[in-house]
C-alpha cells in the first residue's frame, strides 16, 4: 500500500471515530443541557422582575418552584387582548405576568433582537403603570466577550431599572441605548428614555435598541391597557402560552 493511500485511510478512520464520539456526547447529554437551558430561561424571567439576583447561583429546584408560584405565562393577540383557552388560535404572542400574590406586580415581554453576530434573547419587565422598566435580562447571545458581551453583565442590565418607555406626555418612545454614558451623551429631557451604552460595542447597542423598539411596539397595545387601567383584564381560563422551543 502506498503512503498516500495509507494517509487517506488513516485520516478517514480518525474522522469516523471522532465524529462518532461527538455524536454520542451531543445526543447523550442533550436532555441535561435542555433542562439547564430551561431553568436558565426561568431564572432570567425572575431576574428581570428582580425576584432573583443576577450573578448569584441558585439551586435548580428553587428557581423552578419560584417560577411556578409567581410567574404566569399567558397568550395575547396583537390588539393586546388576553386570549382565553376557547379562542381560536390566531396570531398569538406570549406574555409573562409576575404575580408574587394575587395581584399582577409586573409584566414581562420576551426579547428576541438582532445583535452584531447573532440573535440576542432575553426578557424586559415593565411595571403595571405601563411605562416604567423594572428590569432587563439576557440569557443567550453571540456578541464579542468583553465588548458587546457586556450586555449580560449586571452593570448594563441594572441601567434599565426605573427608565421609561414613554415621554412626559405618555407617548411611546421606546428605550434607547446611548453612545457612551447617558450623563454626557443625552439631552436632559430625554434622559429617562436612555441607558448607558457600552464603549467598543456601538453596533450591538444600535441593533439592540432597534430590537427593543420593535418588541415594545408589538406589545404596545398591552402597555396601553396597563397605562390606562393599571391592569389587564384576565379571563377565567386564560390560554397558556406556548412553551418556547
Amino acid at each position: 500500500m502506498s503512503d498516500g493511500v495509507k494517509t487517506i485511510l488513516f485520516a478517514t478512520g480518525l474522522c469516523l471515530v471522532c465524529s462518532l464520539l461527538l455524536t454520542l456526547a451531543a445526543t447523550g447529554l442533550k436532555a441535561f443541557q435542555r433542562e439547564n437551558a430551561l431553568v436558565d430561561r426561568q431564572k432570567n424571567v425572575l431576574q428581570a422582575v428582580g425576584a432573583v439576583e443576577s450573578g448569584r447561583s441558585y439551586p435548580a429546584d428553587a428557581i423552578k418552584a419560584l417560577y411556578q408560584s409567581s410567574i404566569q405565562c399567558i397568550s395575547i393577540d396583537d390588539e393586546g387582548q388576553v386570549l382565553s383557552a376557547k379562542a381560536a388560535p390566531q396570531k398569538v404572542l406570549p406574555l409573562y405576568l409576575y404575580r408574587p400574590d394575587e395581584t399582577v406586580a409586573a409584566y414581562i415581554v420576551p426579547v428576541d433582537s438582532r445583535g452584531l453576530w447573532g440573535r440576542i434573547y432575553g426578557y424586559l419587565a415593565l411595571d403595571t403603570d405601563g411605562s416604567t422598566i423594572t428590569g432587563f435580562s439576557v440569557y443567550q447571545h453571540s456578541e464579542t466577550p468583553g465588548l458587546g458581551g457586556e450586555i449580560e453583565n449586571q452593570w448594563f442590565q441594572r441601567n434599565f431599572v426605573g427608565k421609561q418607555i414613554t415621554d412626559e406626555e405618555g407617548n411611546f418612545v421606546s428605550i434607547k441605548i446611548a453612545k457612551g454614558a447617558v450623563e454626557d451623551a443625552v439631552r436632559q429631557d430625554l434622559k429617562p428614555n436612555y441607558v448607558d451604552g457600552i464603549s467598543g460595542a456601538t453596533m450591538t447597542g444600535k441593533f439592540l435598541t432597534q430590537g427593543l423598539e420593535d418588541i415594545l411596539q408589538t406589545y404596545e397595545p398591552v402597555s396601553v391597557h396597563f397605562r390606562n387601567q393599571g391592569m389587564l383584564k384576565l379571563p377565567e381560563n386564560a390560554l397558556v402560552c406556548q412553551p418556547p422551543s
Partner: protein
Amino acid sequence: MSTALVKITRTETYRTVSDALWQNNPISKQVLGICSALAVTVQMNTAIVMALALTAVVACSNLIISMMRKSIPRNIRIIVEVAVIATLVIIADEVLKAFLYDISKQLSVFVGLIITNCIVMGRAETFAMSNPPFKSFVDGMANGIGYGSILVGVSFFRELLGSGKILGFPVVPQALYDMGYMDMGLMLLAPGAFIVIGLFVWLEHALLNR
C-alpha cells in the same frame, strides 16, 4: 522514611511532574496559555473548572496521540493532533454545559479555545509523539496541574483583592469596609491579571536563580 522519599524523587514520573510544576511551568516559565489565564481568573471557581478541563484534555490527548504515535503518517500528524484535541475539547464543553451550566456560561468561549492553547498542542507535538503512553499521560497531567496551579494562584489574589471573596464567600469583614477599605477594581480587569501573572513569573525566576 527518608530513603523512600529519595526513591520517589529519583523516579522518572516524579521528575516529569516536578519539571512541569516548577522548573518548566507552562505559564510562569514558558509563558504559554496566557490568554485564558488572563480571562478566567476573576473568580476561583471558574479558574478551578478551567484548570480541570484543560488537565483532562491535555492528559487524554497526550495518551491517545502517544498510543497512535507509531501509525500516524508524518505528513498529516499536526492535523491528526488537532482533530484529537478538538474532539476532546468539544466533549469537555458538552459535559460542562450538561453538569456545570452556570460556570460554563461564565467560561463562555474559553473552554472552546482550549483547542488553540499552546500547552496542549505543544505537549502533543514535543512529548507524546516520541514517548510511550503512560509517560505521556503523566506528562499531560503534570502540565495541566502546572497550568492550573498558576490559574488558581492568580485567581486567589484577584478574587480576594478584587471582590473581597474566596470561592464566592466574603472574607473581608464588613468592619473593614466601614472603615473605608475598598475593593481593588483593577483586579477585576485583564490588566490586573497581567500584573499578578508578572509577579508570579518574577517570583519563580527569582527562586530558581537563587
